């Protein structure tokens, strides 16, 4: 299976060279960015089966801190990245302890409530730009501002982060933690009775997930150069991570990347094709495709791939277990 991985890596490295035009480079970079946040969500939502609808709070922490560092001290936004991860882990610690008592949908709803709470508070917090939001540097002063004119540099930065994240996830998948999380997903009570320290491992998953989601948020800020409560903390930010992971196949290593590689070009082309008309056809098209996909393959696209096209699916792609319903 190693040659396949190598091929994938080579393709990913070569993609910006094969495709010309800065718009396509940007689309490629956005695919990776969305893949990072969805893969980070996947650790908690996919592997551990704790469906969070509030991951925007971690994403927002990651996006806001670099912008804050810039707007307060005119320092390079990159300096705010560790701060964003730290804040995100802090939120995760405060959130994880009480909410992990909750099961299934109650957990999902609690995460929505906390994320909305944070969004509203930030929207009224002057230090964080309140409703107006915060900006990064519009034009790079030094290389450290990471403000590039084209998207290729972002693409490679994102690729590095995604590779690290997927590497960690793959290692986790094979480790004891991976088995524990899968046990928790298929039934927490049963897992506990088998001696799995469920609460502790869910927390580990949450921390890992929150840290990388924050990193995705920081990368977003560095590339877009602007964050406000809606774009950084809005519920759609959370929903996008869930949709992308679910579409590709939650609880699998490459599912979120696949989901992003399908959905982002789809969104962009849909908007190019129908957006200018202003009839809302973009969303009709997008909604229709999502429904069709959910009807024909509940396990996500990776399951189709595995069952129909690659019956000998590699170990690195994980087993086609699908997610059983929580609770």
């Amino acid at each position, binding site marked *: 299976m190693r040659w*396949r991985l190598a*091929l*994938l890596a080579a*393709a*990913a490295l070569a*993609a910006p060279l*094969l*495709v010309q*035009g*800065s*718009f*396509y480079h*940007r*689309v*490629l970079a*956005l*695919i990776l960015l969305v893949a990072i946040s969805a893969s980070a969500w996947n650790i908690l939502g996919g592997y551990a089966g704790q469906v969070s609808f509030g991951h925007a709070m971690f994403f927002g922490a990651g996006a806001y801190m670099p912008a804050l560092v810039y707007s307060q001290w005119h320092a390079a936004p990159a300096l705010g990245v560790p701060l964003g991860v730290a804040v995100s882990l802090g939120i995760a610690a405060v959130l994880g302890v009480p909410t992990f008592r909750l099961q299934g949908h109650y957990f999902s709803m609690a995460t929505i409530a906390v994320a909305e709470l944070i969004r*509203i508070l930030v*929207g*009224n917090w002057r230090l964080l730009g*309140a*409703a*107006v*939001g915060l*900006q990064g540097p*519009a*034009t790079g002063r030094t290389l450290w501002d990471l403000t590039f*004119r084209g998207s290729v540099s972002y693409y490679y930065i994102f690729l590095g982060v995604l590779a690290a994240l997927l590497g960690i996830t793959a290692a986790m998948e094979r480790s004891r933690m991976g088995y524990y999380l899968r046990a928790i997903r298929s039934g927490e009570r049963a897992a506990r009775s088998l001696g799995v320290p469920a609460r502790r491992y869910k927390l580990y998953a949450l921390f890992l997930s929150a840290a990388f989601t924050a990193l995705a948020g920081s990368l*977003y800020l560095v590339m*877009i*150069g*602007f964050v*406000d409560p*809606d*774009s950084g903390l809005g519920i759609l930010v959370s929903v996008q991570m869930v949709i992308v992971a679910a579409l590709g196949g939650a609880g699998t290593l*490459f599912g979120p*990347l*696949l989901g992003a*590689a*399908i959905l982002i*070009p*789809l969104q*962009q*082309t849909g*908007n*190019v*094709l129908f*957006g*200018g*008309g*202003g009839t*809302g056809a*973009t*969303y009709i098209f997008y909604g229709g495709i999502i429904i069709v996909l959910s009807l024909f393959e509940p396990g996500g696209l990776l399951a189709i*791939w595995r069952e129909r*096209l*690659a019956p000998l699916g590699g170990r690195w792609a994980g087993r086609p277990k699908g997610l059983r319903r929580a609770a």
Partner: protein
Amino acid sequence: MRHRLIVSAAVAVALAVCGPLPGSGAAAPVKIGVLMPLSGNAGAAGQASKAAIEVGAQIVNEAHPDMSNIPLAATAGLPKLDGARIELIVADHQGDPSLGQSEALRLITQQHVVALLGAYQSSVTFAATTVAERNGIPWMVGDSSSPNITGRGFKWVFRTTPIGPDFAAAYSGFLKDLETMGHPVRTVAIVNENTEYGTSVGGGIHERLAKDGYNVVAQIPYNANGTDVSAQVLQLKEKQPDVVIFVSYTSDSILYMKTFKTLGYKPKVVIGDDSGFSDPSFVTTVGDLAQGAINRSAWSVGKPGSTTYHINQLYRAKTGRDLDDTSGRNMQGFLVLADAINRAGSTNPEAIRAALVATNLAPRQLMMGYKGVRFDATGQNVLAYTYLTQLVGKEWVTVWPKSAEERALAWPFQGWQP
């Protein structure tokens, strides 16, 4: 392997769909990109603005001798570019800053637009103008009013519309003139929605009116998506201000007027800061409950036969509705941009930028009630200005300043027929 296949398949789809179109022939059309929220919560405003800009392009591209005071209207196309027509490339950014950037980049690099226009929400304008700045393409802001959009040291961003401080100055001037008309007012309440627009404009009005000696008894921020506004109206009822100023979007403006009636509340003066009050839906839905409301607007339909009247006729023919202020400001932004491209005599971005910098239009050359168009070093139009209008029946008629008055102010706010 499989993944590369998927990625390349996806990219191939994208390429097939939006690949660059070959340009053609002499006097090739001049492409201008238009970025508006055509779906999502601000869809209605974005679509109205899109239609207005399309009417603007029609005015430039066709010969309209009846509006010869507007530059480029009398002739067909751009005379200094061999009569080239303007072609609009419209894109939907859905109110998402990231998508705004993507679409701006696509319009610049794939469609080779020579200038951009947009983008309604200040958040998207903030983010997307950086793409224009980095690529050296002029961007005309027709309506986003956040003060920070200009003044970031950008070379390529120009804005024709009046902004927060201009509005605050207009309200202060109006309240002062009320006194000379024999209707002195002392106390003011400001009710503003709590996103960027309401916060910055509401705060600016508060500051200015307090400085000018008015007693601001309350500033009430609220969430425009809320289901109920009676708490705000009850607060107003308790504070009894003479003047209530709303900085609101459409849905909430409608709810306020409905709730005024339900709770039987009528302050002496109700002022709407454009936006929601200017949305044509406002008059069709709650016009009967808001008689005598004051609105900020630089647009006035004018008398039959006038240029603005003709423009409104064209807009009506296209959409079946009257032109509103927000869309009008976008049309004005487009016309200023088209005039600059013509004066540049070229589609070279640097030449267009130089022409924009040199813009100097007089009030009679404009469709909106600005005192002219001349940009300062930050790109802001220093002659931007606004009128105040009053709702009479289903029409907004200009009542302030005196020089532009179409009809004497009706006093006080009547609201609904008892």
